[in-house]
């Protein structure tokens, strides 16, 4: 009896933090998937395929990293995929009209950021629950994008611009470098800055956060705007990788991004999770989809598998949290 009481009051000291242990398990899972795929498919371990996995994972990660901050506040942003589509189409138009990739990149980021800010305003000032506000935004953005493009496809961008998504530097794809940069920035922001810690506090207990003087509304505006800007960044990478933009490119992006966040161990109930976890989550999801591809499973199966993974991830999260209590 005494032992049990002691344990509940003072958890056993461990060298690693709870977060680090969670990430470690997920790294193991990723390695296990790699081992299985290496056995099942000859081409999995080829350099070309591994670089391809990393590049794909980085695209999911850009969207999912901003989304992680939103989920940390116990919110959700369902509009990210539609935001990528609109930002890509507008950025593409600007590049075509002005011939300046720099201006296009800025417009794409700004467009994503403005959409994110609007989401933040709906959640904070209008007090609409985030999942329904951003779901409404999803359809507004979808409508705007289809109307703006009117069935057209933007095609053909300057060679320099296309390097961003498809170029290599010292043998590694350029998006992988961007991934490392944003993984570093995101981790530093969330773990080592006061604003980052305040975001965790808001997710863990919004009332306590408000009472202890954290400007909750301003921090929420910040996370939704950051989520929008990261969608804008993803739109630029997409644009330069595909070398074209169509109104429907965002439709299959939201579910994988949410899956990456949840696989990565960020809790839907806020306050728990890391940006690094989301990176591992993006990697695991990409490995699974890549494996299906290598084993010649039709791409039609991808939404089904992603949906199952989303539900499994939330269920596992809730199970471990219940055990921890």
């Amino acid at each position, binding site marked *: 009896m005494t032992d049990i009481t002691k344990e509940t009051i003072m958890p056993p000291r461990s060298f690693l933090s709870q977060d680090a242990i969670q990430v470690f398990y997920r790294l193991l899972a990723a390695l296990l998937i790699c081992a299985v795929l290496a056995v099942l498919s000859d081409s999995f371990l080829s350099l070309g395929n591994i670089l391809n996995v990393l590049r794909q994972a980085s695209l999911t990660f850009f969207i999912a990293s901003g989304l992680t901050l939103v989920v940390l506040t116990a919110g959700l942003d369902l509009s990210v995929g539609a935001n990528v589509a609109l930002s890509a189409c507008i950025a593409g138009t600007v590049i075509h009209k002005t011939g300046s990739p720099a201006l296009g990149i800025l417009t794409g980021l700004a467009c994503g950021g403005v959409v994110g800010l609007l989401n933040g305003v709906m959640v904070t000032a209008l007090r609409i629950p985030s999942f329904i506000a951003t779901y*409404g935004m999803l359809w507004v953005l979808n409508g705007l994008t289809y109307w703006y493009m009117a069935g057209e496809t933007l095609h053909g961008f300057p060679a320099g611009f296309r390097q961003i998504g498809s170029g290599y530097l010292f043998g590694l794809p350029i998006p992988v470098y961007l991934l490392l940069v944003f993984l570093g920035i995101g981790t530093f922001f969330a773990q080592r800055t006061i604003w980052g810690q305040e975001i965790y506090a808001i997710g863990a207990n919004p009332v306590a956060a408000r009472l202890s003087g954290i400007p909750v509304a301003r921090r929420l505006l910040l996370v939704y705007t950051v989520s929008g800007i990261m969608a804008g960044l993803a739109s630029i990478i997409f644009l330069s990788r595909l070398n074209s933009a169509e109104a429907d490119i965002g439709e299959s992006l939201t579910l994988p991004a949410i899956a990456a966040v949840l696989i990565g161990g960020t809790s839907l109930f806020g306050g728990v999770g890391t940006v690094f976890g989301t990176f591992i989550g993006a990697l695991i999801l990409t490995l699974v989809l890549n494996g299906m591809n290598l084993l010649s499973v039709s791409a039609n199966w991808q939404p089904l598998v992603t949906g199952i993974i989303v539900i499994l991830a939330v269920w596992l999260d809730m199970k471990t949290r219940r055990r921890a209590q």
Partner: protein
Amino acid sequence: MREAAVVSTPNPLQRIPGVAIVLVLLVALFSVIAPGFLSVANLSNVLVQSTILTMLALPMTLIIMTEGLDLSMGAVLTLTSLCVAIVSLATKSMLLGLGAGLLVGAAFGVANGWLVAILGIPPFVATLGTLGMAQGLSLIVSDGQSVVGIPHSVRDIYSATLLGIPVPIVMALVTYAAFHGLLYHTRFGTYIFALGGNREALRYAGLSPNKLLIAVYAIGGAMAGIAGLLMTARMNSGHPTAGLGLEFDAIAAVAVGGTSFERGNGWLLGTLLGVLSVGVLRNGLNLISLPSSVQVASVGVLVIVALFLDGLRSRA
């Protein structure tokens, strides 16, 4: 204390203005700016086209009253519509097709309810997951292709009339009557109010909130199955993306109709008027030749405005 009301009584009189004013304003607006809007042919067209949405919006009202949400409804409708098409094509029987659609729809509904009630997964994420699954299954069973050549018995449902009234409208009216009876005149209906308003009270009364919740989601799935029959009949084919996004119109109709997302209050007649508002909005924008993309965006704006007003009311 024992007599404290479990049911938060809806006050229709207080709510009639909101959605009725929206509908009257929309009708007035399009009567002026859209030529041909007020013709009998067009108005009956609006009614017939609103029938599928009615079938989704009524169960969506019940689900939202339990403080839930079903984002998978459009994708499940797509899947059931494909099931109706495939089974009726193979067996030449409309009833077997409907049965297949009902079965698949109800299965998804039970799955949604199980994820929400038993596993405790937040509804919007649980149903987002099943949305992906239903969408994936639609692509798999149809291999991404339309299913064509379905029997006449299915197609005729959409064009047939009963006593001069189109069959889809008859079906929608019967559905409304059934839901009205269920919600306001049965114990089950009272329990639905309690699921959103006071779940603890149900537990104290010796009932299982989880089973009730699963039943509510199962009704939603089954209704998506019936709507799937109408969808297949209307398009005279099964298509792997036919119903995607329709859940949004359903949520819009419920939100405009004055059902609250946070307080377990629901109003079925409001939802019906909400369905008509969405139908009129889409039809009117169509008549003044605005593309469907603008219709989608304007329904999105409609939802956000309705929710903002709902938030104002809940604070007032």
